[in-house]
């Protein structure tokens, strides 16, 4: 287990470096939420999910849907590191004619459904889960939502329906970093009591530290065992996690690091990697 965690930590660190680099190169994009969701994606793409990068449309693959589409740098890093497409594509993020769009779409191997317009993803994931039930396939569906995103009414329509249809093959994850573009969620539109809301909608709720890989893996494992209802993991995270000057800073929700910031960030992340190796 210790080794597994160390491996995931290293993957997450590499993802963070790729996120910072691709965003700096693109000159625009969303570092804050990409970094807050990195550890969640590292667990999914390097441990939890079943897939075959060489055969992205394998019928029995687990499905992942990034409902908070603006955090696609984290997803693109996960996919590239797994060999869904060449790493070099990351350098062309957000460029004219590039495969990697500002928000993900289906030209990217490994992206199931385009996203970017917030609030629709949990429904999309529910559709995938229902298809699995109809076809009697045992794949699981994971859907990552932003905290600001779940202010959309469509999320709660989907939440109600997923419980109604007993979609126990569906696992939602809320990246609860407490920031949206305009400021703190508590000030812009309060989400609390969030656990009660999901429970009231008929979901099994698991809370964890969204940067603690043990807790995340344990959460995903427990979610798998829940029958007859969907599970949501409320992952308590830090916006901009891993880069000191981006942590808890709302400005980095939607601003890419400049050249100087990129250098400092990469240096910091390299040091983190060294420290973790030393442990």
């Amino acid at each position, binding site marked *: 287990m210790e080794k597994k965690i160390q491996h995931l930590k290293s993957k997450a660190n590499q993802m963070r470096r790729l996120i910072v680099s691709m965003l700096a190169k693109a000159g625009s994009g969303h570092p804050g939420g990409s970094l807050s969701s990195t550890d969640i994606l590292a667990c999914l793409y390097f441990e939890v999910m079943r897939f075959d990068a060489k055969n992205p449309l394998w019928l029995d693959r687990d499905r992942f849907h990034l409902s908070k589409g603006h955090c696609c740098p984290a997803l693109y890093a996960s996919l590239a590191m797994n060999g869904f497409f060449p790493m070099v594509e990351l350098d062309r993020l957000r460029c004219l004619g590039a495969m990697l769009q500002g928000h993900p779409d289906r030209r990217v191997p490994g992206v199931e459904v*385009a996203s970017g317009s917030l609030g629709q993803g949990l429904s*999309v994931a529910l559709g995938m889960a229902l298809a699995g039930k109809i076809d009697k396939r045992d794949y699981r569906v994971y859907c990552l939502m932003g905290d600001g995103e779940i202010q959309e*009414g469509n999320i709660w329509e989907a939440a109600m*329906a997923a419980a109604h249809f007993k979609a126990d093959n569906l696992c939602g994850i809320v990246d609860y970093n407490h920031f949206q573009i305009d400021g703190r969620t508590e000030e812009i539109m309060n989400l609390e009591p969030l656990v009660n809301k999901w429970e009231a909608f008929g979901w099994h709720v698991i809370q964890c530290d969204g940067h603690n890989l043990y807790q995340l893996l344990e959460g995903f494992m427990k979610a798998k065992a829940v029958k007859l209802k969907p599970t949501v993991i409320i992952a308590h995270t830090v916006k901009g996690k891993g880069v000191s000057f981006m942590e808890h800073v709302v400005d980095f929700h939607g601003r890419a690091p400049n050249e100087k910031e990129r250098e400092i960030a990469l240096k910091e992340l390299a040091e983190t990697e060294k420290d973790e190796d030393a442990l």
Partner: protein
Amino acid sequence: MEPLYQRDVYGKTLVELGKKNPNIVVLDADLSGSTRTVLFAKEFPDRFFNFGVAEQNMMATAAGLASCGKIVFASTFAMFATARALGQVRNTICYNNFNVKIVATHSGITVGEDGASHQALEDINFMRAIPHMHIIVPSDGPETRSAVITACESEGPFYIRLGRAKVPTIEKKKDFMLGKGYVVEEGKDMAIIACGSLVYESLQAVERLKEQGFSVGVINMHTIKPIDRALIVETAKKYKKVLVCEEHQVIGGLYSAVCEVLAQEYPIRVERVGVEDRFGQSGKPAELMECYGLSANCIVKKAERFIRE
């Protein structure tokens, strides 16, 4: 011929398709009795999902199902299928080019007594602006069946627009072909290009115009997107006068589609029978057709004036 409910035909066609193709899934949003998807629900309960009053969720879930290879039919009233769930239809169904077939009933002013909130008069406009979307407005029962089968067999998203009331079956028809309108009636003085319920109204109008010595052609333009450009240009060249008739706002529907083609390829004056940028109201369907200038009577008046000019 015997008048039919297009939605009855739709429900029966779904059952027919469902028997042949296990990949078909049907969704509704608490209107399955009215849209007649209930017929499919009874036959194939494992492939039917009722989402309750939540159209946005229904449309985005349809996309998720389609991403796993399902052919998804999603039905509700035209007002809610389009205006209410537009973001989902645009970003999650059409952008992905998914096999989601939106079959909406209760379109147009002939919804009647329920009034303006339920009379979808802008739905073609909403759907037409979205890339990848196909739009069919069948004129009667048999054409509804053809449209539904065609949508099922074709790739990509479709919007099929049906009415609430019974509609007479139109004779003298050709086989349905997606994207190909056809001439129902030949004439000399003017051509009417119509879709949906106004094909029948136009034919009624043409009979009366004949009595007054006018010879008017009628074209059934059942596919609004992709529009049959060749037929529109050919019609304009032959008749020089074109009147477009539709149960929709004059902004953004068939009239707009025809004008867009002719403005570019063969500019002539194009007249219209449609709802003139206003909301509907309660009333009996026939009264409303008269009041909003859509009935055969109104078409006759407009055509007479236009031909005499």
